[in-house]
């Protein structure tokens, strides 16, 4: 568990389009990440107070997110504003989804999974980033870190360079080969699964297209080798149980 309040990455910014929502799991806790149509990102507890349905199954309308189950609509403060079955009801203030502190930086959406904001800023502010991808690996974060500490990341701008690993925080790692740097947000999903939200710390003019494909292919290879070597193979299934209406 991540005891003190820290920024935890929950998605790449580019993966959550305006008007879209998605689920994320952090240390077993379900989070809905969504973006209102004005472009602001939100991370909340992924649970409708009505019947416990995951809000990430729902849909975004303007600056409201609606539950798929009965269409209850919540504003950006998590406050329920509209219940379709009772259109004339002045919805009580108590019907509210817990909202979490949320921030976007370096092409990544971060949340603290509480209302608290950490004293420390998100480490490794970079001017220009190129989105790469999120990578879900059936492997604990500690083992991924071990592998990355000695990994050799083939450069895109130039080859034949050493690779340096650095942990700027528990949830932020970098891999640097010459001019090229991967900036990695680490989201522990559960004890056997980890999500890496990876961007290239450099301008799109340099990396868009071929550079992205180069590093993405390397990440797929990394995932394969980690999962083949993982002590407990994906027996503990990483899927969640379907919500049955």
């Amino acid at each position, binding site marked *: 568990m991540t005891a003190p309040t820290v920024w935890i990455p929950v*998605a*790449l910014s580019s*993966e959550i*389009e305006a008007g*879209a929502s*998605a*689920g*994320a*799991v952090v240390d077993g806790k379900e989070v809905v990440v969504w973006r209102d149509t004005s472009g602001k990102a939100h991370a909340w507890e992924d649970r409708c107070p009505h019947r416990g349905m995951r809000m*990430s*199954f729902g*849909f975004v309308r303007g600056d409201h997110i*609606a539950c*798929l189950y009965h*269409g209850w609509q919540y504003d950006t403060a998590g406050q329920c504003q509209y219940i*379709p079955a009772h259109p004339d009801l002045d919805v009580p203030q108590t019907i509210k989804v817990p909202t979490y502190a949320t921030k976007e930086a370096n092409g990544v959406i971060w949340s603290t999974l509480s209302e608290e904001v950490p004293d420390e800023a998100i480490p490794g502010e970079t001017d220009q980033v190129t989105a790469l*991808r*999120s990578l*879900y690996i059936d492997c604990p974060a500690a083992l991924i870190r071990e592998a990355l500490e000695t990994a050799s990341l083939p450069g895109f701008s130039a080859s034949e360079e050493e690779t340096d690993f650095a942990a700027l925080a528990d949830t932020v790692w970098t891999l640097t080969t010459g001019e090229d740097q991967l900036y990695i947000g680490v989201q522990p999903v559960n004890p056997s699964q980890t*999500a890496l939200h990876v961007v290239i710390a450099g301008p799109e003019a340099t990396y*868009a*297209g071929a550079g*992205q*494909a180069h590093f*993405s292919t390397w990440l*797929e290879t990394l995932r394969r080798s980690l999962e083949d070597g993982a002590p407990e193979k*994906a*027996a503990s*299934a*990483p*899927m*969640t*149980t*379907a*919500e049955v209406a």
Partner: protein
Amino acid sequence: MAAITLYDYELDEHCYRVRLLLTMLGLEWAPHAIDMVPGEEEKQPPMLALNPLGRLPVMRDGDLVLHGTEALLAYLARAYDGANTWLPKDAADFGRVMMWLNFSTLDLQPASQARVQALFGTTGVDAPLKEASRNAFRIMDDHMTKRGYEHGEWFVGDHVTLADLALFPSFALSRDFGIDHDEFPALRRWIRRFRNLENFTTMPGIPDYH
């Protein structure tokens, strides 16, 4: 009476693929409802006369009777899509579409079986089926991630094709058998695009956002 009859079971994802294309092509057609569960009507003599394999979907267009999802989709595209949108004329793109159609039949078969177990079975979903489904979705997500680097929004080429249509239902319905969309960001964006196509139609399990 409509020219085209689809022998159809509403909850069957293969029938849904054909309904999707019929609707998106704007064709006049009529469903002939078959009681697949629990009746197994598709395995009774009248239906076996149309398809000796005892499976849906089966389609009649005038005197022509066809069965098998891939065949039905390819036939409809060739017969009624004069613009060659769904089944591209270009040889390379045609090959790519056929590759994904094949994938949808072979490699998404576990997903289809898992869903049938989840909906109609009594013992839950076999773990190997779920694992195989997840692997197939990963291959799709990796593909669409790379397509994104070249500004590709669809599985093949610069517009929607049968590849997207044949792959869409398995992923859109994956929550039916307990696979969430969390870890497939590129597929999430792709199904949003697909849902927004003109004449898109839903089925039970693929919500119509009110």
